[in-house]
């Protein structure tokens, strides 16, 4: 559902000279939602590479309602004891889904041949309050999960409350401090392994770059930086550090949005190089190719797919 293809890229000439205006602190823009803090970085750095064949067909029956069919065949990884070996089991499944998309209400449902079902609801109750719900049911016991979020959007802040199964309660808040800088924090409490956590996040953006960082009491510290080099090219880099287990991963990636295709590539400090190429063969027909090389574990994954509609 994410728009794979941005519309035809046209150069925009900004005629107005940039004047240094005095910052109006009472009229700051609304920040991005807390879970989308790292949105630009992850768009470049986490392309969804896959292994095997993937075929997606989306048919719109109405302006608002559409059905989608998708077939995925390929090996899936099974977690193994030793970190060196990788166990793969070939699987194939078909997924059927229905989407209803309205400006105020969005309903998405999916069902798969292995019995898994998922549903997502997003409703704007008023123009400031939004409810989101997300549920996944599986055949195995104790693998189903559900999560409800209530979002409130203020003039220059956003607040969110989350409830999930396994007695998960969370809240987060983000506030614009200057027109470019926004700071936020989150708190959560999980019932099943009784733990709670607190985290802080910051995001600084200008026209050409976005830098964001996040620290959490679970030991995660992440920082990333995206530079928009031109209309078509953006480069991103990311650093993730776990200060309990003292593991660090850094990655560098690029994202080229050309007229007929989109190429994303990334290289990692774990020795993983991955790339995803989406090419528009004709109107509504996209051809996908993905590759991932893990030089440390000597695990090479390649996939190709077709997206129609």
């Amino acid at each position, binding site marked *: 559902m994410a728009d794979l293809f941005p519309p035809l890229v046209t150069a925009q000439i900004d005629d107005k000279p940039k004047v240094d205006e005095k910052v109006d602190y009472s009229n700051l823009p609304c920040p991005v939602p807390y879970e989308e803090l790292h949105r630009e970085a992850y768009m470049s750095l986490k392309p969804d590479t896959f292994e095997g064949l993937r075929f997606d067909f989306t048919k719109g029956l109405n302006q608002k309602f559409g059905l989608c069919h998708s077939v995925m065949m390929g090996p899936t990884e099974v977690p193994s004891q030793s970190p060196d070996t990788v166990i793969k089991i070939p699987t194939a499944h078909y997924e059927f889904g229905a989407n209803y998309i309205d400006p105020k209400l969005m309903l998405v449902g999916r069902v798969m041949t292995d019995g898994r079902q998922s549903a997502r609801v997003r409703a704007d109750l008023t123009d400031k309050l939004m409810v989101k719900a997300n549920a996944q049911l599986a055949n195995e016991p104790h693998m189903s999960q559900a999560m409800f979020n209530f979002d409130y959007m203020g003039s220059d802040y956003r607040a969110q409350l989350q409830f999930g199964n396994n007695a998960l309660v969370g809240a987060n808040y983000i506030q614009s401090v200057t027109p470019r800088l926004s700071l936020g924090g989150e708190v959560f409490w999980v019932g099943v392994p009784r733990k709670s956590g607190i985290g802080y996040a910051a995001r600084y953006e200008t026209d050409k770059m976005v830098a964001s960082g996040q620290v959490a009491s679970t030991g995660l510290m992440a920082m990333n930086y995206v530079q928009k080099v031109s209309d078509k090219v953006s480069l991103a880099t990311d650093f993730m550090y776990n200060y309990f287990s003292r593991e660090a991963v850094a990655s560098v990636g*690029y994202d*080229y949005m*050309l*007229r*007929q*295709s989109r*190429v994303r*590539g990334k*290289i990692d400090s774990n*020795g993983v*190089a*991955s*790339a995803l*190429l989406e*090419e528009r063969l004709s109107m509504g027909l996209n051809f996908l*190719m993905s*590759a991932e*090389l893990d*030089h440390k574990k000597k695990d090479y994954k390649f996939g190709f797919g077709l997206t129609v509609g």
Partner: protein
Amino acid sequence: MATNKRTGAGKSGGRDSSILAKIANHEIANKGRRAACDAVYVSKKLLRSTGKAAWIVGTSFLILVVPLLIQAERDQMLGEIELQQASILGPPPPGALQ
């Protein structure tokens, strides 16, 4: 006789061979031999690690850079074709359907 010959031969030849043997068993020659063995060992390792590095760099280049170059070239050719068409057809007439 034979021993004489041998010793005789040994003495002159022995002197040669003893000189040769002396040279061959000298400390410096031993060091030279060890150095040569080490050099062969190190150069084998260097070749192997260069080969590994070349493989890693080569396959990563193939995955990360080659599709990008191909797509960028296609985009450039598309731009040229559009430019050519625009110059051949000229500006669209005022009532044209865009």
